[in-house]
């Protein structure tokens, strides 16, 4: 009797276990695999996200860990965050980037603020419009070498088979690590870096009249004026024409020649970097680069594709002059770079305005994230 009761009990327990196992298998994945809350301020549109890599909190968490992990470089010296430093709005305070072997990059590290909204990525590439594609460049490029994974794939991948990482990959993808998943997680993390809580946003979009100083408001008037023309390239909610979102999918070519150089009087840029023409081979694309967002521009010095302008003051003086040196007469220069007269106070006001685009909350929430050492 006791035995039969025990057996019945055992069967009950077993079937419960089997049943719950079955239930677990059929249960939808936990919330952090399915849903993502952008936590955008009221009215701001969500970015477009590729269908094959939907956002999830688990992917963002994994991507964040990978982003700061020097194990992603072949020699365990460099992480994404070595160049894209959070306290500088995910750029870095030096002219041009340096890769894991010490090899120099010819371009300035771009800020990753609101990169999810970019219709084109990097400084000048009309065909590169998905973050997943872009991330392959720093990971695998051989010239210049950035993370330098090429030739060390197996060795690098093995580092992400630890217990801790396996758990994160399992949670994000239900699977083990591979480079496709690493890329997707990194892309999800950088997409999550949205920044719309600056004094300007509070003034413009939340209608708080007191959010900006009077000087910043005066600078704003100049910025949006047809005399200064800044907004023609740095327009829209993300201060770059190169933006798309869930309600705006139209694609306009956002590349401009700003008259930074003119080495042959016919508009040529130095052979080291000629911008969009290198990709399209179209003569009119000489010297054209993408207008980057101006959000948090206060902390992302130096400026321009080659980091050749050190301060915001330099940048404003450059645009007032309508270019630099021979570049002023560059025949391929954008029509909005005719130059303008600038009073000292106007310059100060413009700088105040640009400072009002700094989102302290964003910078603070990402600051002090430690680099992971091997």
């Amino acid at each position, binding site marked *: 009797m006791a035995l039969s009761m025990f057996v019945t009990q055992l069967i009950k327990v077993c079937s419960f276990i089997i049943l719950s196992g079955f239930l677990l298998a059929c249960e939808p994945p936990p919330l952090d695999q399915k849903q993502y809350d952008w936590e955008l301020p009221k009215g701001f549109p969500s970015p477009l996200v590729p269908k094959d890599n939907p956002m999830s909190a688990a992917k963002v968490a994994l991507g964040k860990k990978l982003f700061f992990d020097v194990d992603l470089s072949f020699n365990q010296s460099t992480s994404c965050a070595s160049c894209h430093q959070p306290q500088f709005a995910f750029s870095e305070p030096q002219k041009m980037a340096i890769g894991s072997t010490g090899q120099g990059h010819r371009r300035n590290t771009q800020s990753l603020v609101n990169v999810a909204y970019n219709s084109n990525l990097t400084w000048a590439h009309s065909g590169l419009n998905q973050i997943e594609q872009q991330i392959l460049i720093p990971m695998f490029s051989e010239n210049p070498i950035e993370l330098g994974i090429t030739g060390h794939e197996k060795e690098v991948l093995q580092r992400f088979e630890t217990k801790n990482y396996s758990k994160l990959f399992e949670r994000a993808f239900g699977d083990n690590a591979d480079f496709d998943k690493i890329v997707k997680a990194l892309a999800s993390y950088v997409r999550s870096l949205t920044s719309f809580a600056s004094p300007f946003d509070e003034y413009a*979009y939340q209608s708080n009249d007191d959010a900006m100083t009077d000087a910043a408001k005066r600078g*704003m008037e100049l910025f949006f004026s047809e005399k200064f023309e800044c907004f023609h390239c740095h327009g829209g909610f993300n201060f770059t024409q190169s933006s798309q979102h869930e309600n705006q999918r*139209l694609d*306009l070519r956002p590349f401009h020649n700003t008259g930074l150089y003119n080495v042959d009087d016919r508009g040529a840029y130095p052979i080291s970097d000629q911008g969009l023409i290198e990709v399209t081979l179209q003569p009119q694309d000489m010297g054209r680069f993408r207008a980057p967002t101006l959000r948090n521009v206060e902390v992302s010095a130096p400026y321009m594709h080659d980091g050749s302008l050190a301060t915001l003051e330099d940048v404003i003086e450059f645009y007032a002059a309508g270019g630099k040196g021979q570049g002023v007469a560059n*025949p391929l220069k954008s*029509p909005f770079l005719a130059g303008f007269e600038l009073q000292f106070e106007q310059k100060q006001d413009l700088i105040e305005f640009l400072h009002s685009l700094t989102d302290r909350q964003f910078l603070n929430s990402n600051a002090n994230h430690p680099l992971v050492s091997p």
Partner: protein
Amino acid sequence: MEVEIWHNGNPLDCNTFESNQQVWSIQQLAFFISNVKLSDENTDHQPQLSSTPWQTDDVVLIQPHLVDCGAKSEDKDKTSQNDHSASEALKTNNQLQFLLPVDLDASNQLFFTLAVPFELNHQNPLLQPSPLNLPSMFWSWRSGHKFFRLDMQGPDKNWVFHLGSVGCTAASTMRSPQNECVQPNRLSFNLDKKHNGTKLVMHLDRLIANTEMQNNGSCLFHSGQESCTILMSNLKTQDVFEWH
């Protein structure tokens, strides 16, 4: 209804054209059309537009496809051509799409305004549907949209025409005016049908006539730009638009 850009009496397919022995290339040509009405002998009829990325039910953004004819053509397989046309649909628009079929045969006049209506012109762009949230066609909340935009590059200079409302009063550039601007610059056109009514033609040469782009400056509607007077007069009197 298709929209075509013509130059000197012929359709312009390339983004370059000659004017006064100079070659100009068009960097951007786009304009808003709203308040479209068709009329026959007796009645006016305001057909609704279908909602697409390029139009709301009353406003359409035209940005014609102008080929870079100087570009070297590249060999492309069929798939990439298909991809190309799909992505092209998000880059250019040369038509007005009506929600329901309209009887163009029965209509003999086409009416439209070359502008965004005041009620829609000064809203928060974040909350506006496409194409009213395109930064390249938006000045600011105070000034509203550029109704017409033509950016061109000449042999050694650039030339730009941006048409929109001016003299708008608001607390700042990020606030909407409560009342109509001093110069709304909304031009309306009432066109007789010339052929079967399937084409709206914009004559680029008539628009820029007498502006002498090489010598005269651009028109961005800030103070004292002589070219603005000429361009506005051309739009009003030179049959810049025709209904074919």
